């Protein structure tokens, strides 16, 4: 059974208000048996320092990724993970995390690959919960295992692979590069202040527009209002609700954030996240790369 939708006025303006909850709503549903709260962080120790009461931890690296292949877990792995975390298929799964919900959005996107029906984000994430002085605990819940069904991962709707992205770029399709301007131009091979992650070439996928992911967020970690987001992505960038859009970053985590914004807050219907992103593209042999002031090489 799903929990009721948060009726906070700000959320009602979004395309899918049922995909977000406010800290007030979550506070009132801490003991709701239909809700499972999951923390997914960039810093893998943060959950251990204190988390929202009752929240389980889902680690993007060790829980959601296949340990051998560069890919996500499969149907068996996801069913096992959800069962261990006490999530049933009809549960309301609320993700939150550090750093503007980066990894929480990524975890929600992965859950969406398996079609989990009711997955929501906590608007403002860990930062807002803490800034409001709300309760944290170090108690780790021990949920009873559920019988989560085995559901095949569906990579066809919201995930894009390299060859598909290449075809999309050749067809003049819309691409949103959500990295920082320095990474987009090719001046930086990594995020500002982050280590080099091993991309051999800098630049961007030909035709991609640069809209850094954080453009969609307020300083307190919440999402900007529907009107502000419409201005950024629909009016200024010119995306249309019914066109195919591919978002990417370096490994797909920042672009999960933008995927969430475009899909659930603005209601675009055909947005895919290219999780191979620049760590794949910038290392792939002879794929076309664009840099400012230079012709695309090799030509598209």
């Amino acid at each position, binding site marked *: 059974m799903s929990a009721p939708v948060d009726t906070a006025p700000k959320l009602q303006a979004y395309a899918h208000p049922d995909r977000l909850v406010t800290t007030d709503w979550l506070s009132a549903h801490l003991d709701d048996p239909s809700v499972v709260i999951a923390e997914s962080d960039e*810093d893998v*120790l*943060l959950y*251990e320092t204190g988390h929202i009461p009752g929240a389980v931890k889902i680690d993007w690296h060790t829980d959601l990724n296949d340990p051998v292949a560069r890919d996500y877990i499969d149907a068996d792995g996801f069913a096992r993970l959800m069962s261990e975390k006490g999530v049933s298929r009809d549960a309301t799964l609320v993700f939150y995390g*550090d750093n503007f919900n980066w990894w929480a959005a990524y975890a929600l996107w992965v859950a969406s690959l398996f079609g989990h029906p009711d997955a929501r984000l906590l608007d403002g994430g860990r930062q807002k919960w803490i800034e409001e002085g709300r309760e944290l605990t170090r108690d780790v819940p021990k949920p009873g295992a559920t019988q989560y069904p085995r559901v095949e991962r569906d990579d066809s709707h919201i995930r894009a692979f390299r060859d598909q992205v290449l075809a999309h770029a050749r067809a003049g399709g819309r691409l949103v590069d959500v990295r920082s301007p320095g990474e987009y131009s090719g001046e930086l091979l990594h995020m500002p202040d982050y*280590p080099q992650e091993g991309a051999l070439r800098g630049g961007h996928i030909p035709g991609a527009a640069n809209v850094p992911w954080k453009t969609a967020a307020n300083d307190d970690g919440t999402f900007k209002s529907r009107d502000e987001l419409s201005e950024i992505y629909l009016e200024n960038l010119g995306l249309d609700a019914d066109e195919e859009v591919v978002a990417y970053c370096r490994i797909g985590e920042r672009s999960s954030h933008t995927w969430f914004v475009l899909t659930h807050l603005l209601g675009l219907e055909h947005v895919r996240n290219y999780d191979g992103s620049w760590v794949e593209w910038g290392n792939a042999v002879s794929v076309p790369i664009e840099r400012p002031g230079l012709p695309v090489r090799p030509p598209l």
Partner: protein
Amino acid sequence: MSSQPLPRRLSEIVDEFADLPRDLKLELLLEYANALPPLPERYATDRGALERVHECQTPFFVATELADGHVRLWFDAPDESPTTRGFAGILHAGLDGESADAVLAVPTDFSARLGLSDAISPLRLRGISAILAAVQRQIRAQAVS
């Protein structure tokens, strides 16, 4: 992974981590994060004396002091970055007070011996090597001047 012997306390810490299951490894790393001593007053007021380690995913600063051939280590990392603090805590507990030669002899890949790769992404683990490299660079710079 090199097999060169480590200074005694650092070697004990490596052993302490090596045999633990994943969840307890993270708990232990958090204990080291919490045990990291605060910056002394002189650095809190003179942050220019601290060097930023850019390879860490969070603002992280290190200062190395050399007196009578022995090394004092000071680190500064935000509370909301417990993993980076944990790395600093391991280096502080394992190397503070050691001789400069002993610290310089620690191989930069020693962190592989902590067996944390099943719990922490390789990118993040690189942070601890970067912190050690910054410490060693500072020691060499002071030894020369």
